[in-house]
């Protein structure tokens, strides 16, 4: 297994929201990807966006720009 490290994890209310964010994030050139939501996180959707912690501002801006509601940005060691 790979070593655990601090990651930005964005959780969503619905799969639709996660996929909408993925489409916007890929178009915006973010380097993250969708992962299964870690069991330690309670979320409405089984998908989460994992990205580098340094991407926080970019992720936050994109969530606002795309008006994706019900999303939360967390930092987790996963």
């Amino acid at each position: 297994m790979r070593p655990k490290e601090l990651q930005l994890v964005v959780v969503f209310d619905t799969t639709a929201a996660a996929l909408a964010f993925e489409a916007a994030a890929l178009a915006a050139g973010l380097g993250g990807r969708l992962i299964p939501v870690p069991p330690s996180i309670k979320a409405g959707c089984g998908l989460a966006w994992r990205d580098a912690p340094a991407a926080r501002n970019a992720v936050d801006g994109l969530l606002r720009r795309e008006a994706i509601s019900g999303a939360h940005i967390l930092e987790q060691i996963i």
Partner: protein
Amino acid sequence: MIYLDNAATSLHRPPCVAEAVCQAMGSMGNSGRGAHDASLAAGRTIFDARRRVDRLFHGYGPEQAAFFPNVTAALNTAITSLLAGGGHAITTALEHNSVLRPLYRTGADLTILPADKAGRVDLSGLEAAFRPDTRLVVCTHASNLTGHVLDIAHIGAVCAKHGVPFVVDAAQTAGCFAIDMQAMQISVLCFTGHKGLLGPQGTGGLCLAPHIQLAPLMVGGSGVHSFDKEHPRQMPTALEAGTLNGHGLAGLAAALAWLEETGLDAIREKEDRLARRFYEGVKDLPGVVCYGDFSAAQRAPIVALNLGDWDSAAVSDELAQRFGILTRPGAHCAPLAHQALGTEEQGAVRFSFGYFNTEDEVDAAIQAMRTLAQEEA
């Protein structure tokens, strides 16, 4: 074979639809069940279908589009939920049993706006039909028997004035007529994927206004919140228990892309032209009676008729066996519309036209009817 039963289901579709289904069957996992490549491929494809449906109907966002196996399931969900506990509902005599039977089953009081002998519904009685306990107005956009189109923008405005949810059955118009949920103030728009949208059978759904909450007919697996005893309430998961028809929805997404490229105006113009060509060719044949108001500017591409006192099933069978022309006889699951036309006993032979029909096919159908009419004269 000449297929003129497009109001029942489309037969001829853009090749991209079957190709998308085949590709999906070889590549898609289960949407929302994990995050591996195959699951994400399904999720992305289904989300693409949601976005396209939402765009087509000018809905309230892709998350407000929920998929079902057919429009009947969508209508059952909307009607059962909005009339839980009874109350009063308003509908029309043009409705399909997919509206009428769920309404009857709720036990709600119903006001059914009548149709005249030409299959037209006079909406001047709509305003007076509202009562303090009216909880729902539900109607078809176009009759599946006569093609008569209801003014859903007007109905939506009246419903909004009274603060009553408005549910539309777009089975006969989605993919042919422009429908703008927001402008028309539609609360729930129910659609099927396999008719005018040209997608596979087993696809359909509804688009929901955000101020309306519906209870699902079914609950179960959602891929999320597995330890909760209640099904998630967020749309669209709230209405989608169990695995979606991802393969079918891949086909629907491809069909929607084709529709966007082709344009609804081009589709409607062609289908209307074919239907009116057929009507003009058969309306004066001896013994032929056509049903509906053909002076209307907007009609769904349907021509229902009878020949003398022949049972409609016999005429339809003759058309199929002797001429290879496929139509739909009988009652078309529209009992009140047939009562209005006076065709409960005879039924009617329904010719319904699609974008992939040709003028040559229409002319062949006219010639077949001419032959039958001459034989009866």
